[in-house]
């Protein structure tokens, strides 16, 4: 992992992976997490929000009285969100194309843990705070090192495999892959035929998300919690 720069690591083991697994990933993402649902339903009617790294747009339609601008780094996931009737654009969380102080609320659900250095995770958070209005709220979810589910990890920076069933989903043929892409694909014949992708994750220790949100600055933390193997923080932008 160390030989690659963080940007290269994310390009190969995050962005290319989501591009390739988009339809399958989308089929597995439909049920909103309760904390996110509660956050969205607590926003006043007519608020406008940004869901950065919105994936297939599963949160864009939860509360019909809000307008949410979806965005994702993946073209294929943005296309799926758009086909479902949602507003979506392609951009990078590290350089958001939005005006300062323009959103009533911001969602970042399971995205920051894909950034490969603390510097980049803080940068990503700074961008989220920048586009938030003073008084606006931000909800951030990241995967926890302290897992209650079946997974166990012995270090914070890990690869987590995604098995793409070959028979049900077309995987991008080699020739269609951009040159930079070097996702390792191995075939597993034991169960059915899968293409295996390694996704990079940085797993968060208890308190770590709070710490880097404070490093990013500009917000006060209102609530911290743990839900389904994830840490989450709700914070509010200061008026200064």
């Amino acid at each position, binding site marked *: 992992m160390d030989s690659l720069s963080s940007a290269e690591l994310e390009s190969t083991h995050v962005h290319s992976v989501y591009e390739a697994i988009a339809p399958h990933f989308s089929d597995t993402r439909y049920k909103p997490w309760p904390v996110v649902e509660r956050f969205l339903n607590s926003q006043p*009617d007519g608020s406008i929000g940004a869901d950065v790294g919105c994936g297939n747009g599963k949160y864009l339609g939860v509360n019909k009285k809000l307008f949410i601008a979806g965005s994702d780094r993946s073209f294929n996931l943005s296309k799926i969100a758009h086909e479902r009737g949602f507003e979506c654009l392609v951009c990078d969380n590290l350089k958001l194309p939005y005006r300062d102080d323009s959103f009533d609320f911001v969602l970042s659900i399971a995205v920051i843990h894909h950034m490969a250095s603390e510097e980049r995770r803080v940068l990503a958070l700074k961008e989220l705070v920048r586009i938030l209005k003073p008084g606006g709220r931000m909800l951030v979810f990241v995967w926890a090192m302290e897992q209650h589910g079946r997974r166990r990890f012995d270090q914070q920076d890990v690869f987590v495999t995604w098995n793409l069933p070959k028979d049900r989903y077309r995987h991008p043929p080699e020739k269609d892959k951009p040159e930079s892409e070097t996702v390792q694909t191995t075939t597993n014949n034991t169960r059915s035929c899968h293409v295996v992708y390694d996704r990079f994750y940085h797993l968060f220790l208890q308190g770590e998300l709070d710490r880097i949100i404070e490093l990013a600055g500009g917000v006060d933390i209102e609530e911290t919690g743990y839900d389904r193997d994830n840490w989450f923080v709700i914070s509010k932008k200061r008026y200064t």
Partner: protein
Amino acid sequence: MRLITHNMLQCPVKGCSKDNFPLRIEDAEIENADADFNPQFLKRMLDRIAWGALVQTSFSLGVAKLPESPGDPNDDEFLQTLHHVLLETRVKEGRMVCNGCGHVYPIREGIPNMLLQENEV
């Protein structure tokens, strides 16, 4: 891309801080899609929208001529026009160009591509 989204956008190129908003829309293929009319939502939008940018963009696309300053929020006709401009007008194909640095952001199948090259970040 709806014009409400366009109104939130600015050029993300590093160091581009003058004339980085609103992005100029060129060669646009416009599509209209019905959206539910919600006066409460529109009234709340009035202080969230950068009005001058919306007037300019709406005019340049030939969508509607909005008043120089936001109209009466209780005027139904004004709200109907605003609704049409913000939520029903969509750019399907075309591009956005930054008046500050000239960067071009393509829009394909309704999805803007706002990614930069590594050296622009």
